[in-house]
Each structure stands twice: as structure tokens, then as C-alpha cells.
């Protein structure tokens, strides 16, 4: 009976995996055939059922790009970037999309430092910190239990501890400098209007344009309080016109 149960589980797992792969292939075929709207629907459905996958986000971004919907395209690329921050194809298409939408990111003061900070995703920096801390703890436990008789062994342990400490410091610094990304959102529509107060009839303050990266603040009814970096534009924007890069609706 146990064996049957295990075989059933295996079939279920393989079936789910194959179903995901076949839906992905189907969406790719739709894209290839020029049915970008159909491809978008299939990719979105795949994401809602199978969870976030870098390749699906990337292909979804391409589909939106072909439909000239640059806001959703940039959003999909940004989400893919959370998972595969060094994918050159992704970075190239994201740059193309931003260029098409004229939604350029503000260059940092030190481009090399920006590149170093963005080399790893925030998730990877977090893992670096956690890994360094766990390594330090394990090393401390080992050194507490076992006496290291040789000087070379003690030096090796000290060097490892220093490296782990450096990794923790680097990760903490990177996460601190990129803390604003936790509340980043992307403007989805061309006519998204920033208003003085969270009402549809409130005075319009400006239209940031699709694909623009904004800082998301408090939520009030169907509105987000947003700030557009370097544009001195802040106010309330309808929730349908902006989406957080880290979505709450997708399975985590």
C-alpha cells in the first residue's frame, strides 16, 4: 500500500511538471506564431498555477514588448531579474523596453558601485549573509569542541572567520543600500495620473509614463501613495495603474 502511495505521488509530481512544461511550450508556440495576446494569457496562467519562474517572466516580458505594452513588459522583466539578475538576454531586453518606453533608470553616482551592488539579487545577498552567519556559528562550535593543536589550523580558522565576516558585512551593506527596492513598483499604463489625494476627481499632478520605476508608499482604498524618483512628483495613483515588483498575489 505504501508503495502504491509513493508511486501515486511520483505520478502526481511528474504530471504537474509535465503540465507546466507543456503549457510553457504552448505559450512559446503562440509567441512564435505571432499570437502575443494568447501567449501573454498562457504565461500569466502558468505563473498563477506553477509559481514564479524566471523563464516565464522573461518570455512574458517579450510578449508584452511585442504588444507595445511597455509597462507590463518592464514589470515582467524586473520580476525575472529578481530571480536571474545576471541573465544577459534579460538585461538586454529590459534596456530595450525602457528605451522604447523612455523610462530610463537614474544612473547612480558611481556606476561601478551600482554594477557591483546589482551583480547579486537581494535574495542572493541575503543568502550570503545567512551563509556567512551559519558558517561563523558552525566554526565557533567546532573550535569550542575541538582544540586546534597546529598553528596553521588556527590561522586557517581565523582566515575563514574573517572571510565570513566580510561576506556578512558586504551583504548587509548591499541590502542597506538597496533597501528602497523593497517598495518599488512599476507604472503600468500610459495615462496613469498621479493625483493630489486618493480620489478619482482629485487634482492631477502629473503622468509619470509607463514602465517608470516608483517608490510605493501607503495604500488608501484603491490608491497607492507613490514617489517618482528624481522627478519631484509624489501623490496618489490608482492601484490598477501600478504594480509592486514583488507581487502579493503570486504564490511565494
Amino acid at each position, binding site marked *: 500500500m505504501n508503495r502504491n502511495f509513493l508511486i501515486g505521488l511520483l505520478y502526481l509530481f511528474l504530471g504537474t511538471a509535465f503540465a507546466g*512544461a507543456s503549457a510553457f511550450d504552448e505559450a512559446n508556440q503562440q509567441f512564435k506564431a505571432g499570437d502575443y495576446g494568447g501567449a501573454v494569457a498562457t504565461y500569466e496562467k502558468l505563473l498563477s498555477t506553477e509559481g514564479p519562474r524566471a523563464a516565464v517572466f522573461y518570455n512574458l516580458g517579450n510578449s508584452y514588448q511585442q504588444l507595445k505594452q511597455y509597462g507590463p513588459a518592464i514589470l515582467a522583466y524586473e520580476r525575472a531579474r529578481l530571480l536571474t539578475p545576471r541573465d544577459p538576454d534579460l538585461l538586454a531586453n529590459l534596456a530595450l523596453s525602457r528605451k522604447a518606453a523612455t523610462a530610463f533608470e537614474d544612473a547612480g553616482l558611481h556606476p561601478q558601485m551600482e554594477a557591483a551592488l546589482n551583480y547579486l539579487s537581494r*535574495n542572493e545577498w541575503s*543568502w550570503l549573509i545567512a551563509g556567512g*552567519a551559519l558558517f561563523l556559528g558552525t566554526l*565557533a562550535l567546532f573550535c569550542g*569542541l575541538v*582544540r586546534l593543536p597546529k598553528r596553521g589550523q588556527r590561522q586557517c580558522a581565523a582566515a575563514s572567520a574573517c572571510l565570513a565576516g566580510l561576506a556578512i558585512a558586504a551583504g548587509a551593506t548591499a541590502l542597506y543600500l538597496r533597501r528602497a527596492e523593497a517598495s518599488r513598483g512599476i507604472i503600468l499604463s500610459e495615462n496613469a495620473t498621479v493625483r493630489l489625494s486618493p480620489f478619482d476627481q482629485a487634482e492631477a499632478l502629473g503622468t509619470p509614463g509607463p514602465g517608470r520605476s516608483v517608490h510605493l508608499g501607503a495604500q488608501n482604498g484603491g490608491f497607492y501613495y507613490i514617489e517618482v524618483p528624481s522627478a*519631484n512628483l509624489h501623490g496618489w495613483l490608482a492601484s490598477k495603474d501600478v504594480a509592486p515588483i514583488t*507581487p502579493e498575489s503570486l504564490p511565494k
Partner: protein
Amino acid sequence: MMLRDCVNAFMAVTMIFLCSISPGRAAEVEAQLDRDSVPAGNGAILTLRISGGHAEPPEIPAVENLIVQSRGQSQQVRMINGQTTVSVAYTYAVGSHTPGVYQIPAVDIVVDGKKFTTQALQLKVLDSGAAQAPPAAAPNAPGAQPAAEEPPDTGEKRFGFLTVEVVGSDRKHVYVGEIAPVRIRAWLPADSRANLRSGIQPEGKAFTLHNVSGQPQQTQEIRDGKRYLVVTWFGGMSATKAGKYPASLSVDATVAVRDTSAPKPQRRRMGGPFDDPFFDNVFDQMDTPMIQKDVTLKSDDQEIEVRPLPTDGRPPGFTGAVGDFKFDASEIPNDWKTGEPQQITTRLTGSGNFALMKAPELTPADSWKTYAGKDEFTAGDNASFSGSKVFQFSAVPRMGGKQEVALAFSYFDPATEAYKTTSTPPKTIQVAGADIVDVEPVAAPATKEPEKKVATLVAQHVAISPAASLVPLIARPAFAEMLVTAAVLGAFGVIFWRVRTRRDDPRRRARAATEKAVHEARESAGQCAAARDVTGYFAAARLALQHRLGALWSQPAQAITSAEVHARISEDSPVARFFHEADRHEYSREAQGEILPQWQALLDEALASLTPSTR
């Protein structure tokens, strides 16, 4: 006689002192009016500045119907490179109730015995009714009408405004791709304080602004009878598509201006021929409170026509350059070999959209294959509108033999509204080797509009990646759990290390061995006492004390003798007394007998005095 000598000496010292602070340059006098015209009943400020010497207060010649009232004097002493300059400024309020043009005559001033004359000045006194109608009435100017008669300036331009002018051109239109040099000026009220909070930016999307000068110039200017602090930038504006668009610029600023709507303080009338109400406003100006506001200074919407570049007469080699350019220098090697690349360097100077300029073409084009190289632009002005650009690129000759080559560059000249092609003088070169026939000829430049490179999307991913969370680890509870685990592991490591180091401490181990030996000796002494073995009791008890003393004195227990104890420890101490008692019993040869309770008590007292805590 002596008194006369003292006076002469004093005069000499005074002269030397005066000479020492006398100016390093000649005396100068200057007369200045702060404005050219005032409404009738208002006043202008006349300043007579005398520098480089000592002068008596000047006298202004009387002019019919012109009221002149002294407002005092101020003195300024400057020391520059050891040279001292003293200047005195005499200030007067001048005005009239009768409209007309008044000549303030030249004023004679005697400076250090030398006569100087200021220039004559002209003051136009306008009819007060007519002067207030146009905006040129300078409502904020010193000497303006009282608030009751003049409405306060509360318009949008009260805090300043921008103006944009195309420099060096009277054209009302521009061409697509053309960068028009513009002068942008922010006009801020002269008595205001301003802080710019943003850069200058176009209001619409039709125009873009380039190379705005980083260090703006600041001047004082009068516009419409009002004095302004003018901040001037230079830059270039360009349009990307044809049509008619409003060209407006804006800049965010925080500006503090005097609140002319605030009530004016009442002044006491002292009487006298020159006690006129219009002079009050000179002082009211200083008493008026400031109001500060975050504003966006904007220029007026000025519609500019953007024309497409004409297709007629467009040269084949045209790549989008708009402006006026010419070759400044070029360097083409004399000797070549077919199929082997060499570098060509050339420099183009002029004015226009240098950012869009591409390398010139090598002619005849079908004899050459060229490769993209590098270029470097050197700006000739603040706005990077004029300058020079050096191109370096490689070229490969395809035809052998003697040839005449030249560099050609085509551009559109917006001033003449025509395409032009400029070339370097033809140069004869020698190309060794046979013609290259297997290389495809270089395609002739397109005669239609230059093709824009369209970047295409990188292809779809075909392999599906595993699912992963978009939420970074730091935002998940697992992160905190990992850190807690690491901290617990570290804490355990520290605890184990402490335990291990305590366990391995040789001093602690020696102390434990001592205590064990003392304990065993006491046990032995107790057994001897029970067996009434006096000799054994004292031997064991002495051994217990020897162990304690050995640990204290860092000696072997057996090496401690009674003599050493008596030498190092006071005779009154319980240890010395016990050793003394033990010696006495040892030598008395009473092997059997009662162990008296006082001996037990003395032993306990001696051991207690040697316990580790009492050391």
C-alpha cells in the same frame, strides 16, 4: 621755538599716517542713479561715491521742481595687497511731483585739494497716472506709491520667471535633429532670496534640452522698470519630430520676496521743507516682511515650428548632421597595400549637433572598406554647441595603384536651409598589391532617409526554469531563523571553549590535586585519631598543612620543614602553633594516647587559614 618744533613734528607724523592710508591709485568720483525713471511723487536713489581721498560733503546744485534730500553717508575701507582704499558714499533721495525730464547737473567735488566732476545724470519723472498703467511702473521699486494707491503685486510672476531665447538666430522655426543654442534666464526680484531646487527641464515632450551650462552667470538687470537678479544658463534645444509645439521650460525654486501687501508702518512727520511722503517708501522697503514659497518658474509658451529635413537634394552620404561644419585637419597615409588596414584621422570643426555626427566618408567609396572607429568631441562653448570632433577609423583599400582620395562629409545647414558637402583636398596615394575581387563591394549609401538601427528582442527562453520565490530571503522568517541558529551555534561554541579551557588549565589542575591530597591527609588523620595513633595523627595532619603550604609557596609539600614554617610564619599563627605542637608530640615519644579536641580544633583553624579563599 620748541613749541613750533613739536607742531612741525606732529604735522609730519600726521602726513606720514595719511600717506600710509592714502590710496594706491588716483582719486575717483562717481554719480549713480538706481533707476532712470520714477512716477511723479516717487523717489530714486542718487549715490555719489568718492574713493581714493578725502573730500568735503558735496553740494547738489538746485534744479527747479526737483526735490533732493540727503539720506546720509557711508564709508568703506578696503585693504588689498597692503593697499588701503577708503571710499565714501553720499546717498540722496531725488524726485519730483511734476512730471518731466530732469537733468541732475554735474557735481564738483574737491578731493585732497583736487577738483573732480561727476557726470551729469538724467531722471525722467513720469505722470503718476500714466506710470501706473503699464507693468513697467515698477511696483516693487523703492519709492513706490503707498499700498493704498497701488495694488500689491500678487501675480504668478511676482516670484520670478524664465525666458528662453534662441541665440544668434532670428528664425522662428527649427529642423528635426537641429540643436538650437538657447540662452535661458531666470529673472528673480532683486531683493529676493532664491534657492533652485531642480534643474531646468522642458515642460512638454516635444523638445529636449542638452548640455545646460553647470555654472550659471549672475547679473543685475532692469526689465520693465524693475530691477532683477538674472541667472543665465546656456544650452541647446532640439526636437525629435516635426510639427508645431510650445517650447516652455521650467525650474523648481524656493523664492522669498517682500510682501508688498503687508501694511506699511506709520511714520512720524517731523516737518521741514523735505519731509515728503514719497521718501518714506525707501525705508518701508526695508521694513516689509519677506514671504517664502516653493514655486515653479516657467517661461511663456512660445510656439516653435519644427520642420522635417527636406528630402530634395539630400546627398547620399548624409547621416543626420545638422549645423555648419568644415574639415580642420586630416591625416591619410601615403603608402597603402590592398587588404591591409591603416588608420585615418581627421577633425571637423563648426557648430551643430555634434552628438549625432558620424565619421566622414572616404571617397571614392567603392575603392575602400571602412570600419567604425572612435571619436572625441572638444566643446568650444558652454553649451557644447560649437567645437571640434576628431574621428579615427580604419580603412582598407580594395583597388591597387595610384589613386586620389579625399574625405567628404555631408550635412544640412539650417541657416541656408540646404544640404552641403564639405571635402578635404584630394590626396594622391600609392596602393600596392592587386585588386581585391572577392570582397563584396561596399553598398552605395542609401538615397532615402537614413535607416535607423532597430534593436530587436533577444529570443524567447525555451527551457522552463524551476519555480522560486520573488520575496528575498531577508523578508522571509527563514532568514531570522538562520541568524538565530547561527547565534545559538556560536554561543554553544563559546560555552564549550570556556569549559575546555577551564578543564585544561594547569593551575586549576594543580589546585585540585592539592585539595585532593589535603583531603586524603585529613582522612588519614581522622583514622589515626580513631585508632589513638598520636604519631600517625600528627604526621598526617602535618602532611595536610604541608600540601597547602606547598601550593602557596610553590614548593613540594615534603620540602617544607618546621624550621621554614617558623621562619616565614608568625609564631602566633595557628599553622606555626600546630607545627610546634606536632614537633612536641613527635619528640615526646607518646605513640599512643588520646587526641585532644583542641588539637583537632587547631588543625581545622590552621587549614582554614590556608584555604585558597584566604590567600
